[in-house]
Each structure stands twice: as C-alpha cells, then as structure tokens.
C-alpha cells in the first residue's frame, strides 16, 4: 500500500478518472436533452452499443477516426429520430418504446458486426485515438498530464457541457425546450411547436449517445467487443436524475463515477485480494446508493413520460 498515494499514482488515477468519465458525460448530456423535452429515452444503452459498432466499422474500412465519430453520431441521430416518431408522433409508451429501441439497436449492432466481420478467432482492431497533448499546458507539473493529455473526444465532451448549459439556460431555444418538458400545453399556447422541439431534442440527444458509444471503440478500446457498453447507458439514466438535469452537475457526477471505475481498475492490479467482479460492481451499487439520497428531491421535468396530443 506504500506506493499508493505517490504523485505518479495520483496523476494516473485522476487522468484515467477523466477518461472514464467521458462517455458518461456525453451519454448523460444526451439523456438530459431528451428528458428536458419530456421524453425518457431508454433506447440509450442500445444507441450507445450501435454507436460503438458504427464508429468501429467505419474506421475499420476508412481508417479515419473522425469519420468513425461522425458515423456513430449520425447513427445516434437516426435512432433519436425513430424514438421521436414512436413517442412524439405516435405517443407510444416511452418506457417500452425505449426498451424496444435498445433491444433492436443492440441486436442490430451484433448482427451487423457478424455480417461484416464474421467471427474470427482474433478480433480485428483499428488504430485508436491517441491522447492529444495541449501544447505548453500539458507540461504544467501534476495538473498538465491530468488535464491536458486527454483524448480529443474528452475535450469535446467538456466543451459540450458548457455549450449545453448555455443552450439550456441562456437561449430562447433552451427556454422552449424546458417549457415543452414542463408544460407542453402552455408552451403550445405561446406558439412553441411542441412536436418540433421534442424531435430536435431527441435527435440531438441521440447524436450525443451515439458519439458516447464511439468513445468505447475508438478511444478506450481499439476493437468492438460484445457488451462493450456494459450498462453505462443505464448509469447515465441514473446520473441525469442525480445531476437534476443540469449539465455542470452532470460533469461532476460523471467524474465521480469515472473515479470509481478508475479506482476499480487500479485496485485490480494491486495485491488486495478481492475478486475483480466486486470492483466492476461498484459503479452500479454507487449509483443506487446515490439515488437513495437524491431521488426524493429530484425535480423531474413535469411532462416527462406524458405524451402530448394536440386537441
């Protein structure tokens, strides 16, 4: 345990905390967009799995990581569109529609992978993203390697936190978005197009979920493995409640969960004699514990789960 709190350990730990938080930040922001408009998107897990696949396959054939990110984001947008058609236009039950999308999208991802790649003994790989050292800044002692030696997607995620916060609370679009999630009748009465807002929110949300999935295949791993997302989508569903649908809190919440993941990874490598599955379990247990303390005070968008139908 002596070498535990050395500077190099801490740098590694904090840097990997931020890395592990990245897909959670993106996915949870995506869910926040959806839920702020009044739609619970339980398709998130499937959309992330498909995003991971779309990113991998595209990069595998084009050797372009950014085309991979684009394809993943686009696939997320399309699933968001499908979710919007089901829940906004048809007004179907959001719980079951979302689960349907998760089952469909994850099944389709595995189907496409097998159809294109087959089942070779050694799974094919791509050259994944390298970290992007911000010139000058990354040499700052201690903080530099933690904050300024991250993947490009991580910087993008942080920027999107700020942008989303700005959109939600400082723009008229954000006001409309929140109003259709709180009181669609009133929003409609003042001329906000409820259907259009919800379509946009679900497409933006889906895009972020798809991009989040791409992080797994294009940055964290360099291949597509089954169950690659491992329930991170469901963690995002919990995280958005914990963060009260506020982007800055999503950021801090994701760091908390990223920290648990990173700690688990590090403890696995030490002499502590605990089966690794217990570390893998930690984020899920922590999520439930955190919800016990925060759920009662969560201020859900009032119109969440309620289909809006114009009379």
């Amino acid at each position: 345990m002596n070498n535990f709190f050395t500077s190099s350990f801490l740098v590694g730990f904090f840097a990997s905390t931020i890395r592990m938080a990245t897909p959670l930040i993106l996915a949870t922001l995506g869910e926040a967009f959806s839920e702020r408009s009044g739609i619970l998107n339980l398709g998130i897990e499937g959309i992330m799995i498909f995003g991971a696949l779309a990113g991998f396959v595209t990069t595998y054939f084009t050797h372009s990581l950014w085309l991979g990110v684009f394809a993943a984001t686009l696939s997320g947008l399309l699933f968001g569109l499908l979710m919007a058609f089901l829940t906004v236009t048809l007004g179907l039950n959001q719980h079951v529609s979302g689960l349907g999308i998760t089952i469909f999208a994850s099944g389709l991802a595995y189907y496409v992978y097998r159809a294109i790649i087959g089942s070779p003994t050694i799974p094919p790989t791509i050259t994944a993203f390298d970290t992007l050292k911000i010139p000058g800044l990354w040499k700052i002692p201690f903080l530099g390697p933690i904050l300024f030696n991250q993947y490009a997607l991580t910087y993008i995620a942080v920027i999107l936190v700020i942008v989303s916060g700005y959109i939600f609370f400082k723009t008229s679009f954000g006001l409309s978005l929140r109003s259709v999630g709180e009181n669609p009748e009133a929003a409609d009465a003042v001329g906000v197009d409820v259907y259009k807002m919800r379509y946009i929110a679900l497409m933006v949300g889906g895009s972020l979920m798809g991009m989040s999935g791409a992080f797994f295949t294009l940055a964290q791993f360099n291949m597509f493995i089954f169950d690659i997302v491992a329930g991170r989508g469901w963690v995002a569903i919990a995280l958005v409640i914990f963060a009260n649908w506020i982007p800055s809190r999503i950021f801090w919440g994701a760091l908390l969960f990223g920290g648990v993941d990173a700690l688990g990874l590090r403890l696995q490598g030490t002499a502590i004699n605990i089966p690794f599955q217990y570390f893998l379990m930690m984020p899920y247990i922590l999520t439930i514990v955190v919800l016990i303390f925060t759920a009662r005070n969560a201020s859900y968008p009032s119109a969440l789960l309620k289909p809006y139908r114009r009379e």
Partner: protein
Amino acid sequence: MNLISFKLEKRTPPPWWFRILMPILAVIISLAISSIFLLILRKNPFTAFYYLFYGGLGTKFAFLEMLVKATPLILTGIAVSIAFLAKYWNIGAEGQLYAGALLATWVGIQNFNLPPVFYVLLVIVAGFVGGGVWSFIPAYLKAKFKVDDVVTTLLMNYIMIYFVSAILEGPWRHPVSQYPESVNIAENAQLMQLIPRSRVHIGFLIAVAVVFVAYFIVKKTKLGFEIRATGSNPKAANFLGINTLKTIIIASVLSGGIAGLAGVSEVAGVHYHLIHNLSPGYGYSGIVIAMLGGLNPFGVLFAAIYFSVIITGAQMMSRSVGIPPYIADVIQGITLIVMLAMLLLFEYKISIRRGK
C-alpha cells in the same frame, strides 16, 4: 414543420377477435420489416424464414429443444407481465433469474438426503425466494425513497451477474473444471426428465402451471384486482382504499419470484450446475413476450412459444443460409415496437391529417 399529425379517438372496446388478430398482425408486420435486414445481405427472406421456422418446429428434435427454451421464456414473460400490470417497470427479470438460480444452486449443492419430490420442491421454493428478495429491494426503494424502478431494476441485473461470476470463480469454483462453474446439484434435487432422451424436463409443466396460477391470481383474486387497479389508475385505486405502494411491492416480489423460477429451470432442469452465462437474455426477452402477449398469461404462453421458435430456429437459419443468429434479437426489438403501435390501434381510432 409540416409533420403528419394524428387525431386519436378512444374506441369502444373492440371485439374479442381483434385482440387475437392484433398480435398475429404484429408478428407478420415485424417479420416483414425484419426481412429488410436479410435483403441487405442479399438473402431471400422466404428461404431464411423457412429455415427459421423449420429450425424451431420442423423436426422432433427442434420441437423438443424449442420446449426447453420456452420454459424460462414463459416464466420471465409471466414475471414481467405481472409487474407491468401494476405499472411497476420491472426490467430486472434477468438479474432475478440469476438470483433465483443462485439460491436454488446453493440449496441443491448441499446434498440434503431428501426424497426427490421434497428436494425438488425445496429447490423451487429457494429459486422463488431468491428472485423475490432481489426484486423486493428495488420495489422497497421505490416505495420508501422514490427511487426510480427502471433504473434500479436495470442496475441490479449487472450487480447480480457480477456477483454470480465472482462466486463461481471464488468459493463455488468447480475443483476440476477449467470453466467458472459450480459443482452439480444433487441428483435428487434435479428436475425430472419429462420426455425420455430429450432435454425437456418437468420445468415445462411447472411453467404452464404458473400460467394458469397467474391467470387465476390476476383475474379472479382481490390481489389481482388491486394490481390491475394500481396499474390503470393509481389515484382511483387509492380512493378505493387500495394501498398502492403495498400492492406494488407484492406484485414485484411475485414477479421476481417467478423470474427466479426461470433460474431454477435452467439450473435444475438443463445444466444441473450454475454457470455465469446461464441466460442469453431471457429476462429481456420476457419484456417483449409480456407485451406481445398483451400482459395476459395465456397470451404470454403463446408469445413465449413463438419467440422460442425464433431463438431456436435462428441457429439453424444461421447455419443454412449464412445469416448471423442475432437476427433473433432484431426481430424481438422490432416486434416489441410494432406491437406497441398495434396497441395504439387497439385503443384509439386514428385519422391522419397533414400539417398541424
């Protein structure tokens, strides 16, 4: 935006034949949509579906294998439908299945010197208790702390699956086998074969019995009425003096217990020991089956058999036509969505208008 909009009018309750026709239509439509994914691979959907159904029903072996897979699917389908009837979103049948399997295995590997009838009964009760307890936790958290049931039931799947995996690589590790699996449960704790020289075991009869019991509970008892009332209108149910929180907890324990029986069926009927990939997602399939079956126990029975055909047949189709077997999951997802849309048709009369 010039979106198409729909005008919905509540229908008068449709005739009984429409209720039966609806899932059949949903199946046909979803197979038609799924064929797009076959056509993309330049496979003939008719050939593919021929092998799909042939592989699930066409031979005696296929038919019996289909019954083996139908057993856990009937149970998870019933489990999910009981929770959904109370509008309790139990998406944790997968974890509850494992929890049931865990406790059933624990009882089974004790080698109690009991006559088979009693030992099997004990294993079944253990499986029900395991699943029930695991399902009680999220329901209690919902009642006590308002923790969202969707989130907790989902997350608890992962916790239980990791726990089973840890146990299998730790204290329960088979001393000789190189796979993470437990030792076999006692012979007198195993579910008896139902049809000689096949894997069909009495678990199938138990699952069918559960269908009848569930039907009786849901339609004929006070508890069933309370569950349905809580699900359709909680405020009115409260007004009638129904303790909706208590009803939700009972429904969730019942639901989890039945999902636990699916774990018993796999451990005591098929594998005779606990393995870490005991279920290829029976718990999630249960959601699709519950919806396709219209949350009605007999509907669930037919829906489970249909998906068992699809899941069993997907292997044969995969080998014969060269299509990834994951098409079975694609069909499940599409069926769930289509069925949901059909339910809309069932409840409302729709007229389509252009523009706002």
